[in-house]
């Protein structure tokens, strides 16, 4: 078994209204040092696969086909062995 931790974020050129609002809220609380906030998604996916390579190939496919909209989002992941 593998545990994939997938991180999805808006591309830097796409305005993130939620992140902007949270940034303003942090400024209002006195955290002036906050320069930027981006809000994305975090997914944990448990998957079976005979090898890391195979699991990774399938995981990338899942990201591109469904989990991520490449028009507005980018993604990254960590794949670790799990029981």
């Amino acid at each position: 078994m593998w545990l994939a931790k997938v991180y999805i974020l808006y591309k830097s050129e796409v305005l993130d209204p939620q992140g902007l609002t949270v940034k303003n809220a942090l400024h209002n609380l006195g955290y002036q040092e906050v320069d930027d906030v981006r809000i994305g998604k975090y997914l944990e996916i448990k998957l079976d696969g005979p090898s890391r390579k195979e699991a990774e190939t399938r995981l990338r496919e899942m990201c591109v086909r469904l989990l991520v909209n490449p028009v507005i989002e980018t993604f990254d992941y960590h794949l670790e062995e799990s029981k």
Partner: protein
Amino acid sequence: MRFAVVTFPGSNCDYDCFYVIDKIMQQPVDLVWHQEESLKDYDCIILPGGFSYGDYLRTGAIARFSPVMKAVEAEARKGKLILGICNGFQILTEAGLLPGALHRNQGLRFLCQFVYLRVENNQTPFTNACQPGQILKIPIAHIEGNYYGDRETLNFLGRNRKVVFRYCNNKGEITPEANPNGSLENIAGICNQSGNVMGLMPHPERAAETILGSEDGRFIFQSVLNYARIQVPVKGSYIERNK
């Protein structure tokens, strides 16, 4: 001309579309469940508004893999008319039938209000009943209607006149104040290269009778019938006709 209105789990404007086509435009129409695998009997397919699959993951992201979408893609390739309204527009972008994406409104609020739209291209199957630059008053109801396309996409849309509607003020001016959701270049509706697939965030089916505050939405349905050279037999609203 036979219409299909596709119902996904979570669609909630399907019956409104059905009603307008059936009672106001007086055309044959079926509600089609999302498991349907063929739409070959239909000339115009409407993907209605709503919250298909609860908007989980992203709006339209899961609906886009419904069995019916393979059929929608097949009919779109044949040149049949495909109209995506609100969630239907989101599904069409997710499916890659229209370029760009729709994401969270700039103000983060769900917006339910009348807006003004300027007809940017009246040479489409969906707008031929409009005058160039005509202003339509039609409501929006969405939280994910903020249109995004990269520079290349926006250039493509602009160069080829594929932007069909932009948000404007009541004078028809395209201003930042008239932009309800942060859409790039005030884009409210676009069509594909060949013009047979159109998506828009506003709801023409909610503005097809004076009793609802506007009947401007009817221009879009009327255009589809013009395109198919169908005369609508009766003018005036359904309510008035049936008094």
